[in-house]
C-alpha cells in the first residue's frame, strides 16, 4: 500500500491542477494550475522508474547493486524542459494580456467569443 502512495499523490496533484484551471480566474493561477498537472504527470513518470534497493544509473559508480532504469528519468527530464518552455511562453502572453486589458481576471478577458 505504501508503495502506491506516489501514484495517489500524482492523481491528487492532477485533480488539484484541474480544479485550479476550472475555478480560479487569475491568469497566473491558471498557469500554476497547468504546472500542478504537469508536476503530477512528471511524478507519475518518475515513480514508474522507481525500484527499491537499487542505485542511480551512473556508470562510473557501478557497484554490485542493481541500477534504476534511466529511461523514465530521461522522459521526465524532457517533459520538464518542455514544461519550462510552455510556462515561459504562457507567462509572456499573460504579461501581454495584462498590458492590453489592464486586468488579470480571466472572466474579463473575453473579447473573443460567440
Amino acid at each position, binding site marked *: 500500500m505504501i508503495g502506491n502512495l506516489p501514484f495517489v499523490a500524482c492523481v491528487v496533484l492532477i485533480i488539484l491542477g484541474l480544479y485550479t484551471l476550472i475555478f480560479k480566474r487569475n491568469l497566473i493561477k491558471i498557469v500554476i494550475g497547468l504546472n500542478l498537472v504537469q508536476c503530477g*504527470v512528471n511524478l*507519475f513518470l518518475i515513480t514508474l522508474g522507481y525500484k527499491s534497493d537499487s542505485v542511480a544509473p551512473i556508470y562510473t559508480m557501478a557497484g554490485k547493486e542493481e541500477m534504476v532504469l534511466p529511461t*523514465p528519468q530521461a522522459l521526465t527530464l524532457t517533459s520538464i524542459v518542455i514544461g519550462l518552455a510552455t510556462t515561459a511562453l504562457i507567462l509572456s502572453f499573460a504579461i*501581454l*494580456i495584462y498590458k492590453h486589458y489592464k486586468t488579470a481576471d480571466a472572466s474579463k*478577458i473575453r473579447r473573443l467569443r460567440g
Partner: protein
Amino acid sequence: MINEHLPALIIGIPLLAAFATPLISKINDKLRNIFVIGVLGATLCLVVSLAFNVFDNGIFVYVMGAKSTGLSLPSGYRMPIRIILEVDGMSIFMAIISSVVAFFGAIYSWAFMHKETGKDKYYTLLLILTAGMFGMEFTGDMFNFFVFLEITSIAACSLVGFKIRRGESSEAAFKTMVLYTLGALFVLFAVGILYGQYDALNIATLASRIQYTAMDKVALGLLVAGLAMKAGAVPMHMWVPDAYAEAPAPITMILVANSQASLYGIFRVCFTLYGLTISTHTVGWIIIILGILSMFIGVTMALIQKKIKRLMAYHAISQTGYMLLGVGVGLAVLSDANALNSYGLKAMEGGIFHIINHAMYKGLLFLTAGAVIYTTGKRNLNELGGLAHKMKFTTIFFIIGAAAIAGLPPFNGFASKLIIYESVYKFNPMLSIIAMLVSILTLASFVKVFQSAFLGPEIIKIKKEPKTMIFAMLCLSVIIIAFGLFPDIVVDKIVAPAANALVNSMQYIAAILGGA
C-alpha cells in the same frame, strides 16, 4: 545515398534552417525570405521523392543513430531501443499535405508580413512548426510523438500571438496554449501508463504487446480526448475560432495542417496502436459522434459569425467532422471483414481524401481572407462590400474555394463528400443525411460571405493585392481544380495506400519486429 536518409533529412533540414534563419536575417531580409522558401521547396521535393519510395517499396524504417539505417533490431535484442522513424502510406500522405501547405504559406508570407517587425522569429517559428508536423507524422515512438506535439504547440501558439500590438492575439494565444498544454500532458500521462505496463515506447512494439486491460482503456481515452481537442472536435473546439482568426493568414493555413496532424495521431493510435485489440465498435462510435457534433455545431455557429476569418474557422471545425465521420465509420466496422470491404474502406478513403482536400481549399480560403484583411484592413463582414470591383483575382479564387468547400461539382470537395455520403449511407442513413444538410448550410454561409464582402457597390477604398500572394493562391486553386477533375488518380495513388496502411496494422508491426 540520399535515398536512405530521407525521413531524417525531411525533419532535420527545416530544423537546421530554423536555427540558421536568425543569423541569415542579420545579413539581408530578402536573402532570408529566399532561403526559407528554398528550404521549404527542397523539403517538398524530398517528401515527394520519399512518397514514391514508400508507394513502391512499402513501409520505410529509419533508425536514428544506429549502425545502419534499417537496423531496428540489433542482434540479441527483442525490442527496438532507439528512436525509430516509420513512414507508411498514411504518414507520407500527411507529410505531403504539411509540406505543400508550408511551402505556399512561406511564399504568401513574403508580401503579407512585409510591414511586420521581428520577421526572423516569424520564419524561425514557421520552420520549427513545419519540422514538428513532419516529426509527428513520421515518428514510430510514442514519447517522441509527444515531444513533437509540444514542439508544434509552442511554435503554433507563438505564431498565433505574433501580432503583440493586438490584445486579442495574446488572448487567443493564451487560451490556445492552456488547452494545448493540458491536452499534451494527458497524452504524456497515457504514454506513461503504456510504458509502465509494457516497458516499451515504440509504437510497433507496444501494438504487438498490448492486452487492452483497464489501464489501457484509460490510456486510450486520454489519448483520444487530448488529440481530438487539438484536432478541434466539438465541444473542445472553442480555441479554434480564437486562434485561427487571430493568427496571420498563412499561419492559419498551416495551423489547419497542424490540427490534421493531431487527427493523424488519433487514427494512428486507434488503428495501429490499439488496432488488434480495441473494441472497435465503441471507439468508432465515439469518433463518429464527435464528428457529427463537430459538423453540425461548427456549421451552425459559422452561419451567424460576423468576422470573416472567424466564420471560416468554424467551417474548419465543421469540415474536420467529415474526416472524423469517414474514418470513424471505417473504425467501427474494422473487425467485420464483410462490412469493411463493402463500405468501411471506402468511407475511410473518403475521410482521408477529405483531409487533403480540406487542407487545400481551406488554405486557399484563409489566404483570400488574408488578402481581404491585407488590402482593406478590416475583419468585420459588415464593413466590407464590393471588393470584386478591384480584387478580381481574389474574387475568382474565393469562388473556387467556396465552391470546393460547399461540395459543388466539379471541384474536389464534391468528390470526397460523395464518397463519404454513399459509403456512410450503407452504415447508417441518418449520418449521411446530416452530412448532406451540413453541406447545404456550408454553401449558404459562403453565399453570405460572397454577397456581403465581394458583391455590391464599392463602399471602401482598397489597395491591390501583391503578386506573391496571388501566386500562392493561384497554385492552390490549380491543385483544387486538378483534384476535382481527376479524383480517381489521387484516390488510387495516395489515398488508397493511406487507408490500407491504417487497416493493415500487422504490416506496421512487422516492419519493425520482423515477421512477428
